[in-house]
Structures are given as C-alpha cells and as structure tokens.
C-alpha cells in the first residue's frame, strides 16, 4: 500500500519535470529559431555541389537507389551520362580541400555514412577523387573545367 502511494508520487514528479523541460525547450526554440537537438549533426563539406540532379530530401533518401539503377544501366547497357554517373557525383561533391568524398568525417560521402553508421564500400573499387580522365574530358561540362 505504501509502495503504491510512493509510485504515484514519483510519476507525478516525473510529469512535472517533463513539462518543465518541454517549456524550457520551447523557450530555447523561440530564442534561436532552430529546434534544439540532443544529438550532434554531421558537418559535411558538400564541395561545389549546390544544384543536384534532384532535390536534397529526395537525394538523401534515394541516392543509393539512383546509383544502383545507374550502375546497372552503365555496366550492362553502356549508358554513360555525365550527370547521374558516380563519377559525376564525385566531381561535384569532392571536398575542395582534399579533392575526395571520403578520407575524413567532414567529406561528403564518409561524413554522412559515418554519422548514420552505414558501411560505405563503393570506394574499395571506385576512385573517390575528382579526377579528369582523357575520355571524360571529351564530353560534358568537365571539359570546360579542365581548361
């Protein structure tokens, strides 16, 4: 019987504490204009990428599907567009400091993947650096960038 009363009292005090925290949180949100976050967010250098092939929210959720689709098109059917190829992604998103999308937790691919704890194995085979190759220079906007 005694224990039951105590339980009730502690749940009441927990409720008060929660309400207080919520109020504090709302006040903080009103102060800064940003929702308060209890977890750190990834700091990612997006390179020169300001205009992608799709909106940011679409790319965040679906980039792996787009890449897999393009991968099969390229390997099996020889379709090699500049914009949706992995090479095109890297050319745009490589860090301006290191020229790569992996290698540091600030770099584009590794930054997010380390944050989300998702293994990234593209770059065991694919080059992670923005490089201009002779045949890539033949077509597309990269030709202009090379000059």
């Amino acid at each position, binding site marked *: 019987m005694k224990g039951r009363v105590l339980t009730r009292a502690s749940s009441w005090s927990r409720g008060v504490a929660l309400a207080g925290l919520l109020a504090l949180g709302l006040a903080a949100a009103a102060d800064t204009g940003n929702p308060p976050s209890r977890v750190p967010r990834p700091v990612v250098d997006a390179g020169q990428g300001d205009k992608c092939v799709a909106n940011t929210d679409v790319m965040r959720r679906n980039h792996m599907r787009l890449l897999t689709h393009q991968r099969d098109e390229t390997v099996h059917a020889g379709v090699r567009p500049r914009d949706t190829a992995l090479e095109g992604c890297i050319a745009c998103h490589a860090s301006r400091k290191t020229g790569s999308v992996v290698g540091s937790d600030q770099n584009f691919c590794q930054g997010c993947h380390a944050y989300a704890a998702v293994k990234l194995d593209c770059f065991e*085979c694919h080059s992670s650096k923005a490089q201009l190759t002779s045949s890539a220079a033949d077509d597309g906007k990269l030709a202009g960038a090379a000059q």
Partner: protein
Amino acid sequence: MSTIDRGRRQLIGFGAAAVAGIAIAPGVRLFEIAAAKAPGDPVSGKVRWGMLVDVNRCASDCSECVRACNRENRLSGATRETDSQWIRKIDIKDASSGRTCSLPMMCQHCAKPPCVDVCPTGASFKRADGIVLVDRHICIGCRYCMLACPYKARSFVHEALRDQSPEVPRGKGTVESCTLCVHRVDRGRQPACVEACAASGHEAIVFGNLNDPQSEIARRIASYPTTQVRADLRLDPGVRYQNL
C-alpha cells in the same frame, strides 16, 4: 550538364554520324549511325566489336600494347601469378618449320563465352555489342570463369587496391579481364592497346565493328585468311589473328 547541352550534343553527334555514313557510301548509313552511339544511349546488338591482329606486323621486342593497357587500366604491370594481366605478349615457334611469331593475347570476347556459361551469379556477361565483361558488383570471386577460359585471359584481384582510374573501377575479391576499353568504346574511341600499337608505328591491331561490312576490320576478314585461336572450341572469338 544541363538538358539543353546534352540534347545539343546528341544532335551534333547524330549529325556527324549521318554525314560520315553518307560520305562513305549511301548503303551503310544505318551501320554507321548504330556504331556512333551517344553516351546516353544503350549498346545495340547491331554492332559487334572485334579486333584483328596482324601477327606479321607485331614485333617480338615491342610491348607497347601491354604498357598502354597497364597505364589505361592502372594495372601494376607486374607478372607474378597473383598480378592482374589483361593482355600479354606471347612468342610462339612452329616446331617443324622453325617460324617464330609474336602476338598479343587477351580476352577473345567470344560470341559463346564459356566464362558466362559457368558463372554462378550472372556476374560474367556478354554485352549486346559482343564485349564480355565482369559485373564486379555481382562477382563473388569464385574464379570458375578463370578455369573455364581456354585463353587464360582472366585475373583475380588478390589484394586491396588504391588509386584506381575513375573510369576503370577494380577491387579485391573479384575477377577481371580485358574490357576492350569499354569506357573508351562507349565514347567512340579506340581501345588503348590499338592506339598505342598505331603510335608505335606497327599498326598491327585493327579495331572495329565486325557486323559492318564496310568497316576496315570486316573488309580485311573478308579478303584475307584469318585465324580464331582454338577455333575447334567453336566459341567464335571476336579477336582474330592474321598471318598466324
């Protein structure tokens, strides 16, 4: 690349292809357009890429094709059992006549490739235009294809690699072989070995569309006797040898 740019480029590409087709002969326009694929188009079964090696022109002391392949695909160039070799030079001697000749040997891009037959995952495949490749996303590294290939054309990557070419992804645990420089061919260029052979002055290798009767390779195959290595296996290789 903006949509407008791509459209414009394709239009220019088709225009150039059409002009080339008319310039050669009115009857071959279709083939010429099919061969001049825009980078955004899928490969077509109307084309079959092949190579013709004139063994008389191939010098025993020259390995420019091998060096060009190593450079283009960023292979180490080492020739130990565990190193990747996509193309190698072979010197052969006829025991009875004593005639010696030198030739490059690589994936023969068979029309009926045994490596494709044995692949348990479908990683080893033949593209519509006859180029035999390994889809390394699917390859599990079992190496059945290496055993099945009568030309010993395939290599297995034993160790982790670094600094791969952006256009030629390669990685540990997968099988690889000559891709006929598919990344160049898809952009209308010739394989690296063919360019290097021409640059060295030997001009022993001709690359082209076997299905186009007006192409140099098809005309030469139609005019001169050529050999498919191990023709008895009836794999119909896309690489042929002249004067072998």
